Structure formats: structure tokens, C-alpha cells
């Protein structure tokens, strides 16, 4: 972590596609999450063990905050919002493994997540309300607000991207500076703080995505 840099190095290329460290780490996170899910759900029983209980608790927690935000059945949004939370949390906690950099400290990753949320909002909004009714929402409260509403769509997506990346990257930078200045033991409290920051940022990203999706499907007021 002492190698302080914003640019993510390219490890290799797959044809024209450069494969950076955040991509490889993402694959690792994906593998861990998918393997953990497979191992945890291959023998589900009515009397759950510890691992099944943990998985059910995580799913129930995500369902709970989706239901709290949109006030409806959380099942349609569960895969996207739940994966956002689990993926971002896993990425944010990945620096606990020595030598691993969090993919969420890269704008490529957070931008990709923000774009997925952006398009998901519109797809779900149009599928739920219809094109005409959905687009008419950008003219609310009156047509003069159309530019502002469009600008809001872009800025909130940009804010999603920058907020997550900035928090994680800044935490990595501070931690790297502390390691460089004070040695190995001093950064430990900050690493513990990083766990909290990582989980909170995952929760914030998932909550905001839920709010945007809920507004798109008409479950809550579009802000």
C-alpha cells in the first residue's frame, strides 16, 4: 500500500482490452462471492446452519432496507441492489488482504456501477410506467424544469461514482501515508476504521441506488 498512485496499472491485454489490476481484483471478488454463495446455498435446509443463517441474514437485511425505502415488495430490486451492496462491500474490504487494492478505488469500477444504476433506473422506469409517462416525469413540476431534471440525472450519477471512489481512494492514500510515516502498528486503527467506512459506503451506494430505482418505478417521489 506504500505505492501511492491514482493510476491503475495494466497487467495484460485480452485482444484490444487492457486488463488492469481492478479488473483482476473484481474477478477475484466475483469468484469469492459466487463460490461463497454456491457453497452456502447448495444444501439449504429448513433448519439453517451458521453459514446459511449468515446468508439469509444478509439477504433479509437487503430486502429490509429496500422495503423501507420503496415501501413495496423488494424482490424486483433485490438482485441489483443486493449485488451492489455485496460487491462494493467486498471490494472495500479487499484491502484487508495484504497486497490487494480495492477495485472501488478506481473510477473505472465506480463509473461502471454508476452507469449500471443509471441505465437500470431508466429501463425499470420505462418498463414500469411506460415511455410516455416516464419521460413526462422530466417535465415535472413544469416543463421549464426539464434541463434541471436532465442535469440532475447526470450529476447524481456522477456523484455516485465520485463519492464512492473518492472515499475509498482517499482512505487508501491516508493509510499509505500513515504507513510511510509511522510504520506498521499505527495504521491498524485506521484499517479498522476502513472496515466501517467500506461498509458504510456500500450501504450508502445501495441506498441511493434504491432511492433512484424507487423513484423510477413510481414507488417514491422523484427528487
Amino acid at each position, binding site marked *: 500500500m506504500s505505492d501511492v498512485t*491514482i*493510476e491503475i496499472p495494466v497487467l495484460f491485454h485480452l485482444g*484490444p*482490452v*487492457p*486488463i*488492469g489490476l*481492478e*479488473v483482476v481484483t*473484481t*474477478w477475484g471478488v*466475483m469468484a469469492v*462471492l*459466487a463460490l461463497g*454463495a*454456491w457453497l*452456502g*446455498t447448495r444444501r*439449504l*435446509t*429448513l433448519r*439453517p446452519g451458521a453459514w*446459511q443463517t449468515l*446468508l*439469509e441474514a444478509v*439477504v*433479509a437485511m437487503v430486502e429490509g432496507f429496500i422495503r423501507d425505502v420503496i415501501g413495496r415488495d423488494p*424482490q424486483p430490486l*433485490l*438482485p*441489483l441492489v*443486493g*449485488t451492489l451492496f*455485496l*460487491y462494493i462491500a467486498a471490494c472495500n474490504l479487499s484491502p484487508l488482504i495484504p497486497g490487494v487494492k480495492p*477495485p472501488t478505488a478506481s*473510477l*473505472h*469500477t465506480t*463509473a*461502471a*456501477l454508476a*452507469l*449500471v444504476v443509471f441505465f437500470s433506473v431508466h429501463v425499470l422506469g420505462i418498463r414500469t410506467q411506460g415511455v410516455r409517462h416516464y419521460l413526462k416525469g422530466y417535465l415535472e413540476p413544469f416543463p421549464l424544469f426539464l434541463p434541471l431534471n436532465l442535469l440532475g440525472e447526470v450529476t447524481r450519477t456522477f456523484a455516485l461514482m465520485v463519492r464512492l471512489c473518492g472515499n475509498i481512494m482517499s482512505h487508501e492514500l491516508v493509510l499509505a501515508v500513515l504507513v510511510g510515516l509511522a510504520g506498521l502498528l499505527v495504521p491498524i486503527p485506521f484499517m479498522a476504521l476502513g472496515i466501517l467506512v467500506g461498509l458504510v459506503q456500500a450501504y450508502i451506494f445501495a441506498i441511493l441506488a434504491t432511492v433512484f430505482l424507487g423513484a423510477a418505478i413510481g414507488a417514491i417521489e422523484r427528487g
Partner: protein
Amino acid sequence: MHLDPWTLALQAVNFLVLVWLLRRLLYQPVTAMVAQRQALVAKDFAEAKAARDQAEQARLEIARRLDGIAGERQQQMAAARLEIEAERRQALERTAAEAAAAAEAQRRSLEEDRRVVAAALGDHVVDLAVDLAGRLLAPLGTPVVAAAMLDVLCQRLAALPPERLGSLGDSVEIATMPALDAPAQGMWRERLTGLLGPEIAMDFLADDSLVTGAELRFAGMIVGFSWRDGLAQAKTAMTVAI
């Protein structure tokens, strides 16, 4: 710092693939299991509720039966009380009737006893009176008295009609008390021959049952006068009076 579109697209694809993977491997199985468990819990809850309702129904049924039993018991107790009261009343009436009958029987028994005792006492008194009269009259059995009784007998024979007097027979038994001596017998024979004729045979005897008196005992008739008959009449009159 710049954004590489390939990396951006690859990360987006990676995320979408992860969404697909977790949907298949995590969310669907877990939500299905949770739904299955909730259904099972709901089923158990419904069964428990049904069992509770059934138990409640059974409790109400038992309470209803208990109420019925209590009411029936009260009715039976009331009927038993009425029956016992009727039996007690009948027993009292029967006892009172038996007591009255016993009292009546006792009263009758006492009356009978009193009557028997009174009769016996009367008889005893009469016997004492007769005995006393006999004792008092016995010393008077002198020839003078015998002569007076002869006069009475002669008067009674004289009072008989002649045809009756002629059919008295040819013998007579003369019972006297006290016994007549020879001179007295001679006088009696003389007086009676004058009334009955000289053909009649006379036989004298002493009979202390007469107390004092005499009887002329013919074959078909007795003409007499004795204190025995007088005392017997007095005894009868006293017994009737007692």
C-alpha cells in the same frame, strides 16, 4: 487520470455477470428457502390456530356440558328433595296414623281391661254381698221362717188355676233350707195335702243352695220361694247397674 472505455465496459459487464450469478446462486435459493420456511411456519401456525380453535371449541363444549350437568344435577336434587319431602310427609302421616291406631287400640284395650276388671270387681262385690246376705239371713232359718215360707207356697198354689193344680202329678219333692224336722214335716204334709189332695206322695230333702227357702218340685213345674232366687235377682240388678 483518464477513463478507459474498455475497462469501464468490462467492469460493467463483470458487475452484470455478478448480478446474474448471485441471482442464480444466492437470491433465488435463499428467498425460496425463506418462502418455504415462512409457508411452513404459516402452515404450522394455521394448524396451531386450528388446534387452538378446536381446543377452544372442546372447552366450550365441555363448559356447556358442565353447565348442563349442573342444571341436571340441580333438577335431580330438587326432584330428590321433593321426593324426600313427600316420603317424609307420608312417613309422618303413616306414623301419626299408626300412633293414632296404637293409641286407639291401647285405649280400647284399656277400656276392655277396665270393663273386665269392673265386671270382675262387680261380680266379686255381688258375691261378697250375696255371701254377706246369706251370712246375715242364715241365723233366721228357724221353724218360724219355714212356716212363713210354707204360707207363701200355699198362697202361690192356691193362686194356680184348678185345672193346672189338678195336673201337677202324684208326687212332689219338697226341698227346704233349713231342713225340716219331723213336726215341721208333719205340718207341711198336712197343709199341702189340704191343697193337693191325699193321694200325692211327698219327699222331704234339705238343699243348702236355697240359702233360705223352699221349693215344691213337681214333675212338670217348680213352685218355690227362696232367698237364693232373691239374691240372684239382686245380683243381676247390681251387675247391670255396675
